[in-house]
């Protein structure tokens, strides 16, 4: 009996404990998910959300996309067996440079949700709330800009879309906006948010007023040039305006671009200025991309990396000189081409090929391997590791072999394979440890290594450590060049020359260009050399409608290569190299001197061909099948 009572008591206790507050019992806040109202109550939590959104931005060349995103377009040669297809193909697929459509719109949805939730939050301080809102809108506008560069007009979705689960998704199908609408959106967003963002040159990895204005200037400039130069390619247009912008809009866009750039230049977005810290101009130019401290007031917006934080990149590992590599057999992939190298001007503002022969065609001799590059734009040595340059602790060893007095060459297929020279039986090294040997991967095959972005920090070439050089998305020199181009297109050549001379003087070109010197060719040239390997070349050539002229599918001959340097529509379909040879003629006056030969690396068999259908990347059939309102790109 007593036992029964105690059992009953226990049972009733249990039921009492288990019965009353079912709701409370089941309603346990999850520990791994932060609910929306909590997340948007604390600026630190919102920052972590916006940090994720920053990480998902899109770039053309970037460390996230790997070293090969810096190659192609004959500006460089890819020295890796698996990547020779880049120089062996005869053109690009229409889908090249496209985007992952659903991934892109998933990101846009997250941005829209972020903006919606931030504006609904009540617990954030007004200043925090406004700044986060502006950052979300900046990232959204910048992303739409990236989409427009690749595919023109896209559906402009500014609200998170919700499916009603009723089986008919047609109300979620949006047609493509006009190309000009996307650019207008980017410009108006930048204007709307710029005053909610800080004006602080030391804030580089988050959006600032200058970043918004730099985006606006670039977008307006792109739109202006598409409007103006699109007239050259009337077939690259769609009647609905999804691709192509009316020529009448060009001036408005250029005016907008100039005004936005001038707002940065006049200091209204913080004290930005060109980086002039190191006495050696080439070292100084290379350091723009290495210096992340507040001393660097040139970089405006960048994607930052940090060693030992989990966010590093292997750019230096992949592209360091072979003999100075921190990782055996991981090096030397990205080799700038002679096409790019020769386009750096001489200090008297003239263009000339690198002189390998005299007027009669006989070879020129140089006592030092670097003499051939003397008297050029300092950006050359700042962008490219030339033969004989010091990197980290050693000298880059680039030479293709010995040339004898009778013109024959003694070389080998690898620096470790020694050969005796004539009149001797002692085998010696007959080719540089860093190349070039045609078809030998991971060493240069053009005679040059990349210097821009290459990290000189000890250990930066190791796979495990990686490099934390930041990728610069917007910088002040580009703002100046944008202003120069917009001013030039508006007929204000005096202003254009002034802005461009600032950039050129920093590179050692101290003879200023006069307003009468300004030409379209100058604009094109200056962007090419200043912004090489920063992901601009494709979009610049697209918006100027030059791509189908310079990549016309005809192989680049030696005469082609050396002619018309500095001309905007100069053909550049194959990456050439410049190979140094040691001259071997014991007792002769030129023994031990250097001779050079322009050489097309052996793997280069294709020639770039840019078709009209390449101007705007293909939208996949799956996308069009899912949303029939999306119309196809022209010429595909």
């Amino acid at each position: 009996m007593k036992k029964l009572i105690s059992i009953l008591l226990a049972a009733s206790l249990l039921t009492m404990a288990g019965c009353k507050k079912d709701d409370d019992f089941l309603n346990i806040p999850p520990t791994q998910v932060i609910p929306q109202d909590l997340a948007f109550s604390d600026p630190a939590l919102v920052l972590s959300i916006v940090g994720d959104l920053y990480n998902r931005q899109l770039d053309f060349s970037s460390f996230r996309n790997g070293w090969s995103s810096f190659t192609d377009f004959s500006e460089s040669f890819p020295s890796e067996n698996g990547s020779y297809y880049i120089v062996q193909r005869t053109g690009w697929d229409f889908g090249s440079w496209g985007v992952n459509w659903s991934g892109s719109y998933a990101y846009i949805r997250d941005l829209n949700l972020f903006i919606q939730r931030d504006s609904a939050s009540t617990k954030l301080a007004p200043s925090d709330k406004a700044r986060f809102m502006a950052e979300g809108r900046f990232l959204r506008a910048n992303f739409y800009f990236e989409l427009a560069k690749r595919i023109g007009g896209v559906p402009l979705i500014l609200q998170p879309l919700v499916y009603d689960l009723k089986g008919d998704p047609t109300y979620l199908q949006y047609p493509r906006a006009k190309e000009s609408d996307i650019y207008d959106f980017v410009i108006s967003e930048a204007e709307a948010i710029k005053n909610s963002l800080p004006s602080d040159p030391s804030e580089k990895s988050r959006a600032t007023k200058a970043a918004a204005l730099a985006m606006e200037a670039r977008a307006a400039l792109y739109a202006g040039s598409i409007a103006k130069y699109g007239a050259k390619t009337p077939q690259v247009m769609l009647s609905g305006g999804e691709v192509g912008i009316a020529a009448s809009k060009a001036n408005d866009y250029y005016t907008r671009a100039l005004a936005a750039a001038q707002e940065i230049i006049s200091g209204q977005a913080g004290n930005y200025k060109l980086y002039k810290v190191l006495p050696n101009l080439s070292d100084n130019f290379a350091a723009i991309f290495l210096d992340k401290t507040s001393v660097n007031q040139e970089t405006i917006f960048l994607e930052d990396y940090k060693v030992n934080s989990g966010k590093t990149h292997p750019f230096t590992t992949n592209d360091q000189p072979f003999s100075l590599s921190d990782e055996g057999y991981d090096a030397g992939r990205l080799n700038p081409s002679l096409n790019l190298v020769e386009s750096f001007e001489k200090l008297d503002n003239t263009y000339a090929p690198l002189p390998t022969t005299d007027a009669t065609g006989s070879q020129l001799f140089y006592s030092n391997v670097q003499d051939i590059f003397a008297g050029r734009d300092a950006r050359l040595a700042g962008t490219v590791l030339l033969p004989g340059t010091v990197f980290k602790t050693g000298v880059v060893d680039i030479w293709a072999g010995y040339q004898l007095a009778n013109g024959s060459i003694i070389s080998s297929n690898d620096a470790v394979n020694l050969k005796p020279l004539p009149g001797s039986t002692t085998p010696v090294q007959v080719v540089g440890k860093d190349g070039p040997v045609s078809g030998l991967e991971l060493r240069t095959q053009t005679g040059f290594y990349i210097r821009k972005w290459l990290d000189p920090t000890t250990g930066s070439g190791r796979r495990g450590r990686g490099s934390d050089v930041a990728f610069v998305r917007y910088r002040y020199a580009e703002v100046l060049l944008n202003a120069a181009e917009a001013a030039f297109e508006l007929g204000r050549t005096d202003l254009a020359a002034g802005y461009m001379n600032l950039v050129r003087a920093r590179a050692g070109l101290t003879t200023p260009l006069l307003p009468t010197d300004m030409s379209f060719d100058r604009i094109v040239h200056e962007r090419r050399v200043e912004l090489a390997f920063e992901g601009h070349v494709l979009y610049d050539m697209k918006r100027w409608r030059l791509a189908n002229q310079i990549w016309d599918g005809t192989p680049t001959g030696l005469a082609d290569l050396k002619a018309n340097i500095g001309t905007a529509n100069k053909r550049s379909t194959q990456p050439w190299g410049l190979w140094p040879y040691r001259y071997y003629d014991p007792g002769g006056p030129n023994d031990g001197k250097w001779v050079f030969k322009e050489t097309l690396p052996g793997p280069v068999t294709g020639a770039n061909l840019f078709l009209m259908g390449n101007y705007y990347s293909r939208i996949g059939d799956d996308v069009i099948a899912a949303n029939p309102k999306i119309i196809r790109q022209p010429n595909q």
Partner: protein
Amino acid sequence: MKNKFLFYILCVSMCGILSCKKDNYTPPSSQLNGALTYKGDTIRVEYNRVSFQLYQFGFGKVGPIGGTFSQNGTMNMVLFAGNYKFIIPNGQGPFFWKKTPAGDPDTLNISLAGSQNLNIEVMPYYMIRNAAFSGGGGTVKATCKVEKIITDANAKAIERVTLYINNTAFVSGANNVASASISGAAITDPNNISLSVAVPSGLGQNFVQARIGVKIAGVEALIFSPIMIVTY
């Protein structure tokens, strides 16, 4: 050991049984052979450059079956029997393809039941007539007549006429060892155009394959003559 072996045998045989009989559709068997023609004359284009699209309706999602024409202006496709719509997208080919008033390419209806040969009649801007090639002394010479076909408001000028030679059977702007051009402005008599190109040394063969292409201003694709093997 023995058990393991039996187990493998069992797995393999199960796979064999599963994949043997009824899980596959019969493959498509109707062959569509198309050729670009103008009044019975073949229109030749560059390999893998001029594209076409085939649509089959009635299966929910609509996406094209795409392909490109061969050098000889032909296309081959193995399809299921049914009704198809054939288009050549805007901006493709050295010829005029009819458009709807809205500016979309007009369709050609094809009902396919069994294999079929199809002449795709188009209006080229120009035709290359009487192309003749001769070789000798390290050069290849060619003569031809270029006839203007479209003379109304859609007419376009000749940008250039080019002689291409290659050491393989693919001869075009993208695939050649040498080429020689005459610009449209320099052509005095379109009935008698002659070109000559030096054959580069080191080809390792005593013949090249040659053909003439005409680039029409504002049209991306070239129209070509037949390919001829020329001994030099």
